[in-house]
């Protein structure tokens, strides 16, 4: 992976340079945006509900036992907004959308479609990478805002129905409101934006670098997902460290 970091940065830099052309490519951006949303919405809803729920289940009884039932909403709210929703959704999207990007571009590379674009003086970065990167950078933060809200709802639901906690919605959300600031949600969304850039860049780069036949496409897909996840976790630490200060 680290051999290719330079190439990935170069690809990102060239895509950034082509950003003024994004409006011209708006139709493709919209198609990709719709594809990402359509493919991920249900999974995001289910995953975030149960993430909030399990967090509530893991922390709630212990806090209630120690006489701190009002802390459950705050802990679940902070954990979901700052960490769990951004990271889990990014990993989900890396697997669902990053793999699809790498497979599609890799297939185009293997079957000479990218060469065909070049012979028509169509820059593959403008035509293929730019719309995907812009779409994922817009879609993922929006999905994470939704994931945060559903995660909170999942946490609150479990806190209320679990007989070890039985914390009413109003208490849960009252505590959540007192502990979670808009800044916490904004930080989570900002981290997600960075993760989206990572997923888009890594996946498009792997697709563009595909060699060989169907086996090569398979290798690119695997590398795209694995490298995205590794970089997401690494950058999660770096960004968390920076944002905490």
């Amino acid at each position, binding site marked *: 992976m680290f051999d290719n970091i330079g190439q990935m940065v170069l690809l990102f830099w060239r895509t950034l340079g082509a950003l003024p052309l994004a409006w*011209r490519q708006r139709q493709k951006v919209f198609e990709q945006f719709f594809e990402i949303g359509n493919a991920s919405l249900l999974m995001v809803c289910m995953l975030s509900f149960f993430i909030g729920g399990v967090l509530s289940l893991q922390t709630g009884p212990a806090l209630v036992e120690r006489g701190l039932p009002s802390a459950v909403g705050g802990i679940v709210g902070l954990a979901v907004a700052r960490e769990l929703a951004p990271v889990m959704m990014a990993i989900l999207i890396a697997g669902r959308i990053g793999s699809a990007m790498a497979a*599609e571009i890799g*297939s*185009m590379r293997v*079957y*000479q*479609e990218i*060469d*065909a*674009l*070049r*012979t*028509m*003086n*169509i820059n593959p970065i403008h*035509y293929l990478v730019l719309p995907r990167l812009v779409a994922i950078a817009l879609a993922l933060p929006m999905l994470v805002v939704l994931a945060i809200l559903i995660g909170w709802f999942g946490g609150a639901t479990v806190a209320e129905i679990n007989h070890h906690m039985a914390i009413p919605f109003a208490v849960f959300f009252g505590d959540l409101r007192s502990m979670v600031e808009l800044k916490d949600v904004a930080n989570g969304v900002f981290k997600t934006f960075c993760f989206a850039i990572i997923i888009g860049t890594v996946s498009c780069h792997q697709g563009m670098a595909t060699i060989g036949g169907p086996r090569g496409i398979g290798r690119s897909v695997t590398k795209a997902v694995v490298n995205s996840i590794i970089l997401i976790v690494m950058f999660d630490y770096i960004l968390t460290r920076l944002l905490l200060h």
Partner: protein
Amino acid sequence: MNSPAQKPDGVKLEVRGLRKSFASQEVLQGLDFTVQPGEIFVIMGPSGSGKSVLLKHLIGLEAPDAGEILVNGESIMTPEIAAKYRMALVFQSGALLNSLTVGENVGLYLTEHRLKPPAEIERIVREKLADVRLSEAIHKMPGELSGGMKKRAAIARALVIEPQLILYDEPTSELDPLSSVVIGQEIWNLNQNTRVTSLVVTHDRDLAFGVADRIAVMDGGQILTIGTPEAVKAFPDARVQTFLNADFKREPRFKNI
């Protein structure tokens, strides 16, 4: 046989001392040849002789280690000069974008470069598809087309840029004999109608001798001979004759497999 001198609209292509190596293998070993304006020039040779690599150099997808490529006397090694000339490559596989319809594929160059309004693009797309007798496929996806239809769609896509030089990479590979004849006719008709300089890379002897003004035979990254079809047929080199005359009927051992 058509005379290149009667077809002045295409460009003159010159390849001088072209060399290319991949790792330790020298794939192109100093190629020299000239294609006259409006000529159909066929490069033949067995698989692995360097034909497709040569095409990639001509269209700018590969850079040579040495040598140069001239169009109308100007080196096209710099993108600025290359951009002056309209060149198109018809890929072996067709290389149509699978996510677009045939019509969208054919109009892609005009759409992406915003060269014409949408209605005009549609008119041109219909016209070019009609030229290759593929009008009915305008709304189909490439996956719905036969191999021959894909290649005809790829030719239509190449024609949209009104090329001065059109390169064909194995245009009849993987096609049945009838489809091969159709593709050969398309190459011939386009050359006659548009006066485009055509360079065809193939190992299909019927196609080569059917359409070529001149033929070059390549092997091992070298050109063995260049001449009219008659001259190439009579060329007394064992490698050329082996390639031109290889035939199942003369290899009885195949009948026993």
